[in-house]
């Protein structure tokens, strides 16, 4: 099957193999290079391994049948994740350009894919760094004992605890009130929260410091940001295993429930998790691998990165669940002891008659008499079930800022664990941000919007403009805006971009040419497995995921959860539908990048047809970046 779209003058736009050999020998210094292979691998690992590995994967694992979730996860890792990863590495290394340069080389009509990647990088970078600002806030607040989220503050006349805190919990109160100062709905903006603005400024400043010269600076920083999380996770694992109840957590996490495999949403979630976990489609990976030497073995790199990413997810899930097991056991013990105390007091029994072990039978004995059961009913004993506490399924910010912080307060030397935890989260997120910023900055450089400005200035402009727009997330309703961005800016456009990438390389660039390129670069042609994946299976998987997502979103009324102290079910979060004007914003977020792909193609077509003037071929003056741009006078 030789299905290839006609692509004339492709050879003119891309460096030939001879050009590449020449570029290898002559070091012009025009294009950046990696300091060492380690820096490259650490940067890619850092980019792929992010907050999602820590707070999304464990939740998915636990809610989709524990150990059984590994099966769809690993299958989709092999059939969807690794082929896409290999493709991005190979095409970047071959065409030696960022995502915009790559796609405009493959075909000018496909430049839209690069633009879409840049836009998505920009949006995702904005809200992702806000999460880092929250992490920074918690980190800064960890340098005190007792931790501020361990107890409720007193109200104004010092007679009682603050009502909002008393009805929910100190950690909830600290998160929703003292950190976010959240309003009750997305329509109420609530004004800028000054402490959040400061933390946001701090987060963007740290990011600017690290990205100031592109991979020159990030290449050094990743030695710390990519390795520190593993160190901290190991420390937490050792600490966690010594706590009571940790093994319960691990057992709960990994107990397989094979029935979940029959549930299609398990496979959908596994596919989505693999896809988003690898940060595919944002253009960062293409960019990173374009700085590699031409004969770098990208096949090996793709497999190594995939294995490390998968392993990290499982490792992080184990660590998280030792701590969750500890917390659940503590809650269970507290609940039971409360009940025991109530029983002892009500029946005036000697201490020690009712213990945790004989609680059930004692309760039954006391319940058997008429007067006893009346008293017991009046007591309002709460049911204590360990499983309920364990499956207090939390993911995302809830896991990090509510569940985990609560668990930390119960550990001895809490400030130390808190500092370690939030440093780890910050490193995880920061290394992912490097890829996002790279995706935007390199695209701007490829477009030659500001050709003479140095990289420091462009990075500065990107960071500053992102910071200013991200101030929206420091409003009272910022949390809701962030959830909006998270759900729609990164999800659907990335799936479309990934699909177009695979179709573009396999059918527009030509799979035959691609095979020859890989043979030139690493010495052997990709085997039948890769061929099957790139041509058919991986695009199909991505298409299926996209269709199901799209249909789901379009067919349901979109809702969001809010924190409303005056609602009936407080502290349970209230579900509200989005107001109508938010739909426009959702369309912009998801639609703008997606429509950039056909939109730019259309623009090029119109340009060609309507302006039939002489097409001047501009060649750039650098040896290493042979991106030809067509200009009409």
């Amino acid at each position, binding site marked *: 099957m030789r299905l290839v779209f006609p692509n004339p003058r492709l050879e003119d736009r891309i460096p030939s193999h001879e050009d590449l050999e*020449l570029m290898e020998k002559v070091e012009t210094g025009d294009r950046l290079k990696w300091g060492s292979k380690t820096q490259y691998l650490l940067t890619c690992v850092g980019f792929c391994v992010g907050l999602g590995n820590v707070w999304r994967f464990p939740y998915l694992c636990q809610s989709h049948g524990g150990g059984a979730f590994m099966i769809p996860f690993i299958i989709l890792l092999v059939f969807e994740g690794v082929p896409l990863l290999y493709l991005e590495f190979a095409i970047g290394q071959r065409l030696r350009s960022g995502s915009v340069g790559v796609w405009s080389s493959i075909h000018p009509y496909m430049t839209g894919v690069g633009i879409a990647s840049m836009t998505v990088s920009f949006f995702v970078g904005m809200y992702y760094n806000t999460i880092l600002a929250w992490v920074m806030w918690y980190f800064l*607040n960890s*340098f005190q004992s007792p931790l501020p989220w361990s*107890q409720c503050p007193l109200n104004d006349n010092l007679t009682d605890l603050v009502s909002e805190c008393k009805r929910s919990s100190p950690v909830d109160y600290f998160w929703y009130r003292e950190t976010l100062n959240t309003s009750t709905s997305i329509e109420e903006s609530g004004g800028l929260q000054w402490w959040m603005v400061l*933390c946001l400024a701090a987060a963007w400043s740290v990011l600017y410091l690290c990205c100031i*010269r592109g991979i020159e600076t990030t290449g050094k920083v990743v030695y710390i940001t990519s390795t520190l999380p593993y160190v901290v996770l190991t420390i937490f694992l050792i600490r966690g295993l010594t706590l009571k109840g940790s093994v319960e957590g691990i057992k709960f996490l990994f107990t397989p429930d094979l029935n979940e495999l029959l549930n299609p949403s398990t496979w959908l979630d596994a596919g989505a998790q693999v896809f988003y976990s690898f940060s595919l489609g944002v253009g960062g990976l293409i960019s990173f691998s374009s700085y590699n030497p031409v004969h770098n073995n990208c096949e090996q790199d793709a497999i190594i990165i995939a294995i490390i990413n998968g392993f990290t997810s499982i490792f992080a899930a184990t660590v998280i669940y030792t701590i969750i097991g500890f917390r659940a056991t503590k809650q269970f013990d507290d609940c039971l002891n409360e009940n025991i105390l109530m029983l*002892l007091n009500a029946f005036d*029994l000697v*201490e020690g008659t009712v213990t945790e072990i004989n609680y059930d039978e004692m309760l039954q004995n006391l319940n058997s008499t008429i007067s006893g059961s009346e008293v017991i009913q009046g007591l309002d004993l709460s049911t204590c079930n360990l499983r309920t506490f364990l499956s207090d399924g939390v993911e995302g910010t809830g896991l990090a800022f509510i569940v985990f912080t609560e668990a930390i307060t119960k550990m001895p030397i809490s400030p130390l664990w808190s500092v370690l935890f939030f440093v780890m989260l910050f490193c995880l997120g920061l290394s992912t941000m490097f890829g996002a910023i790279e995706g935007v900055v390199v695209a701007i450089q490829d477009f030659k919007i500001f050709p003479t400005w*140095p990289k420091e200035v462009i990075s500065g402009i990107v960071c500053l403009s992102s910071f200013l727009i991200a101030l929206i997330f420091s409003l009272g309703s910022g949390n809701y805006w962030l959830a909006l961005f998270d759900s729609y800016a990164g999800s659907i456009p990335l799936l479309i971009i990934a699909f177009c990438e695979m179709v573009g390389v396999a059918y527009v660039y030509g799979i035959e040419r691609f095979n020859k390129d890989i043979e030139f670069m690493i010495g052997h042609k990709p085997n039948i497995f890769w061929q099957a994946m790139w041509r058919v299976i991986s695009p199909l998987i991505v298409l299926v995921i996209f269709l199901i997502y799209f249909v789901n979103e379009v067919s349901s009324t979109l809702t969001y959860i809010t924190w409303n102290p005056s609602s009936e079910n407080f502290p349970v979060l209230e579900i509200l539908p989005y107001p109508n004007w938010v739909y426009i914003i959702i369309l912009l977020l998801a639609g703008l990048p997606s429509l950039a792909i056909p939109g730019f193609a259309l623009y090029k077509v119109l340009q060609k047809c309507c302006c039939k003037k002489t097409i001047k071929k501009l060649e750039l003056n650098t040896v290493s970046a042979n991106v030809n741009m067509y200009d009409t006078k």
Partner: protein
Amino acid sequence: KYLFSINSALGDQAYVWNENEMFLFRATLAFAMRTYSDGQEYDVANVVVCDETPRVSFWFVVTSPLDASLLVDKRRVEEAVRKSRSRINSAFLLTDDTLEFIGIPPTLEAPVAPDTPPWLIAFGVVMGGVGAGIVVLLVSSVKRDGEEETGGKTENEAASDAIYNMSFSDDEPVTQM
């Protein structure tokens, strides 16, 4: 009413509740009444205990030292107890949770509020370090660009030598440039 939960508080080091402990309790209560009430000379005999159970809970009343049949007002007793709560607790090596008075909630400690919130201090440290780093890197960038311009000429000659040598093997791509 008073509730003691000795075992849950002390575990292995729990003491056995007996008459002597009860005597200590009555003495501490008398102390509380003396110090925080009207200053009269309350004595152990003025604290009357009844309805003692093995749970270690009991009722008590306080009689006036002047007239044994006159009971001291409940509110005054409660106030005295509330003010001397920590002394009574520590006499029995217990806390507010394990030594309960029914009807007297534990007093809440006013939190210690430092003048500058500690997070601002940490913030200052972080921003100071980051700012210094950015300035250092920008300055070194400017310096580097300056050096490249002045020292560039000799480098170009060397580079063109290299290209010249290469032209023996790869003619076309070079000449195209």
